[in-house]
């Protein structure tokens, strides 16, 4: 099809050119024919003029007069023959010029192509008395053609222009078609490449999901083994050996707690942990942690703290930050294999636009930084690259979950900060945590000393527990009853509202946030239209919901994250009721 579309203009142009040339030839031949017939007509007219002027001379046989009459026509250089013949066709008189011979008899109509012939009768008294015969040169063909040179040149030029245009047009079309082909090919290649990239990304994603699930399953299995095994022992020894059973239950509880902490860390990495950020002075935090660290890290590690003066405050969840620092310190200790120097340094940092441009996900601005460095063996670049991946670990099996750095990474990112590892093999490792500078009021939370005793419910304090999952609700109800509260329970929002309406003695609404029909927030709002002063305590395992936005709990609500211990619940409950 392209071939054909290319040939069409060429063919048309050639046709047009031929047509133009033909037209030129026709015009020229037509003009030539007109010229020749005009010449012949002129010769005839001259013959007629002559005939009229020699009538009397012929009539009266005055050949001298006749010769005189025709003599002026000799002046014309084109004249070849002027002759007068009598009525019977015999030559009377005449001139033959330029080598032409006079024919003694009147010649026929045949004339050389270079000449035109004029014949006119000499008539007197209505009678033909003779004939004038005239032969004149017509311009030679070359001279005639040169007169048509302009039109010929124009025709040839027009034909050439048309041809050139046609060829150029065809070439343009060909180039265009080629360009289109190339373009189509390019687009196809791009699509293929994009597809391949998508496939690769999908493969990578599936790989990391596999790694993640594998890791979770492995760790959970271990913990479940502890829980199940211990509970099994407890059940069997419950009657015979209550002491042993209690020990077993304690083991089971420990396993479950470790499972809970695993999910907590997973959530932290996933940036889904419900954070309760507060203004923090990192210097104070590091100072407060030094005793804990000394105990945790052991004798072999010397700890040095370098605290910057005038350090900016930041805004983060203090528990999570402590956890992160602890994690990094433990990692450092493990890297140094229990012997070495650990440095904790705080400093103000300004990350400029250039830095922000070079590191994905970093906003330029002021940060307060905590740097934990060791003089251990360091890490090669490929390990640094993967260090924040969950379940990626260089430790031997059973030594670590591979979630420590992932948790740090998740927490810092969720807090709007940035974490970097600087390390060289043989030189040690430094991990820098950048947390955004906090400009709010300086109400640095003092770590509240937890009272030794569990606060308990007072008689008549009626709690409404709303939870769509039966087992969880059962657990909450048991725990609250254990703590001495009176408890009502509802599996969903509607039942709960009915209870709120009928039981004005309910002191507190304890509700899950994520529920199928109406969520906890909506339930609380409706309940408050009935009982505006009713306190509400929310709980959830998720972070993206009506109460927790982007992982941060609304500041005007009471909240306890799942899973929680009886102790945590007791303290929170008291805090809400006494608020």
């Amino acid at each position, binding site marked *: 099809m392209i071939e054909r579309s290319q040939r069409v203009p060429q063919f048309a142009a050639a046709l047009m050119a031929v047509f133009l040339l033909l037209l030129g030839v026709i015009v020229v031949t037509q003009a030539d024919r007109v010229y020749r017939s005009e010449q012949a007509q002129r010769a005839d007219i001259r013959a007629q003029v002559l005939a*009229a*002027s020699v*009538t*009397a*001379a012929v*009539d*009266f*046989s*005055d050949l001298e*007069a006749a010769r005189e*009459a025709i003599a002026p026509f000799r002046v014309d250089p084109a004249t070849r023959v002027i002759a007068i013949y009598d009525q019977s066709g015999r030559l009377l008189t005449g001139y033959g010029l330029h080598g032409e011979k006079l024919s003694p008899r009147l010649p026929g109509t045949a004339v050389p192509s270079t000449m035109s012939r004029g014949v006119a009768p000499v008539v*007197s*008294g*209505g*009678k033909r008395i003779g004939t004038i015969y005239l032969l004149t040169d017509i311009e030679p063909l070359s001279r005639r053609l040169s007169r048509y040179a302009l039109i010929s040149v124009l025709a040839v030029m027009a034909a050439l222009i048309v041809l050139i245009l046609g060829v150029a047009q065809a070439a343009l079309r060909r180039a265009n078609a080629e360009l289109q082909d190339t373009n189509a090919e390019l687009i196809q290649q791009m699509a293929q490449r994009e597809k391949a990239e998508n496939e690769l990304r999908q493969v990578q994603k599936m790989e990391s999901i596999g790694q993640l699930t594998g890791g979770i399953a492995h760790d959970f299995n271990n913990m479940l083994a502890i829980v199940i095994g211990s509970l099994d022992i407890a059940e069997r020894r419950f009657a015979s050996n209550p002491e042993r059973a209690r020990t077993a239950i304690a083991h089971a509880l420990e396993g479950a707690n470790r499972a809970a902490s695993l999910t907590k860390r997973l959530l932290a990495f996933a940036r889904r942990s419900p954070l309760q950020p507060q203004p923090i002075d990192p210097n104070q935090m590091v100072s407060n942690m030094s005793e804990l660290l000394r105990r945790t890290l052991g004798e072999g590690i010397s700890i040095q703290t370098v605290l910057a003066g005038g350090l900016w405050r930041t805004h983060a969840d203090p528990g999570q930050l402590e956890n992160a620092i602890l994690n990094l310190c433990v990692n450092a200790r493990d890297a140094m294999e229990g012997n070495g120097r650990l440095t904790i340094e705080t400093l103000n940092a300004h990350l400029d636009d250039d830095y922000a441009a070079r590191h994905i996900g970093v906003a330029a601005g002021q940060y307060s930084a905590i740097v934990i460095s060791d003089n251990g063996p360091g890490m090669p670049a490929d390990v640094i690259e993967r260090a924040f991946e969950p379940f990626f670990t260089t430790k031997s099996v059973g030594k670590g979950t591979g979630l420590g750095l992932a948790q740090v990474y998740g927490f810092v990112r969720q807090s709007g900060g940035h974490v970097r590892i600087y390390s060289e093999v043989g030189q040690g490792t430094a991990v820098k945590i950048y947390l955004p500078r906090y400009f709010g009021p300086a109400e640095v939370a003092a770590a509240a000393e937890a009272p030794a005793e569990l606060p308990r419910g007072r008689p008549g304090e009626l709690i409404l527990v709303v939870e769509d999952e039966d087992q969880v609700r059962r657990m909450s109800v048991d725990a609250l009853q254990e703590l001495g509260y009176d408890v009502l329970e509802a599996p969903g929002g509607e039942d709960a509202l009915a209870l709120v309406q009928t039981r004005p003695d309910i002191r507190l609404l304890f509700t899950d946030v994520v529920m199928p029909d109406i969520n906890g927030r909506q339930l609380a709002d409706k309940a408050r239209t009935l009982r505006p002063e009713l306190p509400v305590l929310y709980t959830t395992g998720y972070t993206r919901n009506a109460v927790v936005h982007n992982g941060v709990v609304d500041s005007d609500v009471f909240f306890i994250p799942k899973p929680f211990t009886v102790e945590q619940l007791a303290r929170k409950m008291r805090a809400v009721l006494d608020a």
Partner: protein
Amino acid sequence: MSRRFALWLLPIALLAPALARAQGASETAVEAAFLAKFGAYVTWPGGGGPIVICAVGRDVLGDALDRATAGQQIDGRGLVVRKLDSVDRNSGCTIAYIAGSPRQSVSAALAALRSAPVLTVTDSRWSSARGMIHFQIANDRVRFHIDDKAAAESGLGISSKLLALALSVRPRSGR
């Protein structure tokens, strides 16, 4: 020249009458032929009808005129030959060839036809008096003089083509 020769050597001419007759016969035939052709170059007032050529006086043309006019027409007009002793304006002539006779001299004939619409033709061989056309032998050829003035006075028009052949033309007044 022929005439001068004839005049000068009249005795010889008389001695050789046969030669002279032959010469004269040829000139006569030419004059007769001319007479038959003049009609084509002359217009008469009124016009129409046959062209009547009158041979007035002595019969010098003989049957040469009859031969020259036989079966001829000029622009559809027939040619008629009449032989007359004398002529006047009522003789019905269109062309009068006046050779003169004892009864009526050439001059008398010309006087009789003055102002009449008749083309008068004279011959230097027979008279010195001149009509509108006056034949003369020049270079052995029959030529003629034309008195266009006289023709104009008679209301005749003579074609310029004919005038061009004349030895001399007496132009009409105003020309």
